[in-house]
């Protein structure tokens, strides 16, 4: 019984979430009385794998192949199936990234099992792992247990575990050469690109007022803009607002936008889907204004006002004006 972490890198740079997953694996290994190992997939990534040598791990698997240089679900699934047959871990943990979401369900299906995706916590009960995941956009939690044999897959949500809890030690490197043929890979990825340079650096803002779906109409944004102006804050938004074109994409906070950590983050009409929370939960003080007392945003908020934002925001504008 052991745990294998599939680390994520792209073009020789880590996806930092991998280290949260590695720390989680070490913690679970200690609780289950087993060991954790790590796998790094790619081509020319030996130096990355070597960076893990100072961690408390049983082994580091360096899985290299020309066809793993650029990510494709076919090559990753093929290479990982071969690695899993060789390493035979009981549990396989991965960070819940966009890339993992793309290949993990396919990999698990090819092994006739199901991955528990987007896990936020765990506990060990009678020697077995029980995983906690969120349902209904974070409004409800559920405990999930594996009923099928190994390998048992789980992907861990960003921020659910802390990378700074990683334990030091030493780990030997083992090279593993998978067999992947060009004909196995059906998709052809092209160069990555970014659409526009960001003119607004929300990460540097000290005060942020962010607006979400609760604002209902594009015209109503002006009210939140006024609040931001009165407070001397930057205006930000959750994804639906930017998708609708009500504010530019560069003002979007969340997993597909910017990650921010201001002194004060005021969320107006934002329910707090996890994709938004991962982008702002590091803020020092969080205020939420929302009509639904069970909205997930209140799980991270220090102060909350439950009610109609169309009544509350004008009063906030007045109160901040008075306070100046």
């Amino acid at each position, binding site marked *: 019984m052991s745990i294998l972490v599939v680390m994520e890198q792209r073009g020789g740079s880590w996806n930092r979430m991998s280290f949260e997953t590695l720390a989680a694996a070490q913690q679970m290994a200690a609780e289950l009385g087993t060991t954790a190992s790590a796998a790094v997939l790619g081509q020319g990534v030996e130096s990355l794998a070597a960076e893990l040598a100072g961690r408390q791990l049983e082994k580091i698997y360096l899985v290299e192949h020309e066809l793993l240089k650029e990510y494709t*679900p076919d090559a990753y699934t093929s290479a990982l199936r071969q690695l899993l047959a060789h390493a035979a871990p009981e549990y396989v943990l991965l960070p819940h990234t*966009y890339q993992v*979401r793309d290949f*993990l*369900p*396919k990999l*698990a*299906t090819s092994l006739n*099992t*199901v991955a528990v*995706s987007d896990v936020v916590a765990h506990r060990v009960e009678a020697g077995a792992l029980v995983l906690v995941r*969120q*349902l*209904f*956009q974070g*409004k*409800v*939690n*559920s*405990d*999930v*247990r*594996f*009923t*099928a044999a190994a390998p048992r897959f789980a992907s861990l949500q960003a921020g659910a575990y802390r990378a700074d809890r990683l334990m030091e030690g030493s780990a030997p490197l083992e090279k593993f050469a998978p067999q992947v043929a060009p004909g196995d890979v*059906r*998709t052809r*990825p*092209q*160069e*990555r*690109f*970014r*659409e526009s340079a*960001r003119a607004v650096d929300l990460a540097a803002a000290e*005060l942020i007022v962010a607006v979400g779906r609760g604002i209902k109409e594009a015209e109503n944004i002006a009210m939140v803009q006024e609040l931001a102006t009165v407070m001397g804050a930057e205006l930000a938004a959750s994804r639906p607002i930017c*998708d*609708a074109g009500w504010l530019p994409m560069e003002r979007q906070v969340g997993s*597909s*936008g910017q990650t921010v950590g201001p002194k*004060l983050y005021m969320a107006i009409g934002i329910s707090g889907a996890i994709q938004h929370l991962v982008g702002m939960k590091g803020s*020092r*003080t969080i*205020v*939420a204004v929302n009509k639904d007392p*069970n909205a997930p945003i209140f*799980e*991270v908020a*220090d*102060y*909350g*006002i439950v009610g*109609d934002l169309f*009544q*509350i925001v*004008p*009063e906030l504008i007045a*109160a*901040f004006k008075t*306070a100046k």
Partner: protein
Amino acid sequence: MKILVAIKQVPARDSQLKISSSGLSVEDADLSYEINEPDAYALEAGLQLKEKHGGEVVALCLGPARAAQTIREALAKGADRAIHIEGDEIGFLDPLSAARILAAAARAEAPDLVLTGLQSDDFGYGQTGPILAELLGLPHATLIMEVEKTEGGIRVKRELEDGWFQHVEMPLPALLSIQSGISKLRYATLMGIKKAKTKEVKRLAPTDLGAASANSIQMDRVYLPERAKQTQLLGGSPKEAAALLVEKLKFEARVI
């Protein structure tokens, strides 16, 4: 192009959820239901492709009898016909068990393109697309923003994290999970609603498809999350709450 779009009916987004007495689910008595929003974007992408390249859009839905309403809405928006795999008594299906049933129905259709939403707003595993692709033996890509037809297949724009994108080419048939929010969703027209009544809805039972399988995971318990932080809720009138918040931010949190 024959396009199959998988759609699911889920509780409306602003539902107030209560845990059922069994502790295994949420109370469904007072809930209202709607199409899973990410699936509405998959349907929209399918309808746009049909408008451009011709062909047919088939909506595929696994769900209880009430899902017929969501299927009718998809037909009213422009889907040509639908398949409703009606299972009131199917109980908890893990993503693979559910996808096996969908795959059996999809296989019989032999579509050129299968579209799914990114994830469901209820259980949110976000896995149905890639699982279906594997079961159907199709190449796939997820978080798709644009689809372009090419000589030998399709070229798609895929969203990566942190503002990055990538184009990916693949042959058809293929499966795509569509990113939410990429286009404006259409409303059903009066004509569409009228026409929907005459469109074909094929009803199947999960048992007809012979795709029963054991779950690999089990949901033990459903419960309301504990708060990570103790939130101070500021009550009173909007005016009082606003004044109290400013005072707290100034003198307690000292952030303004």
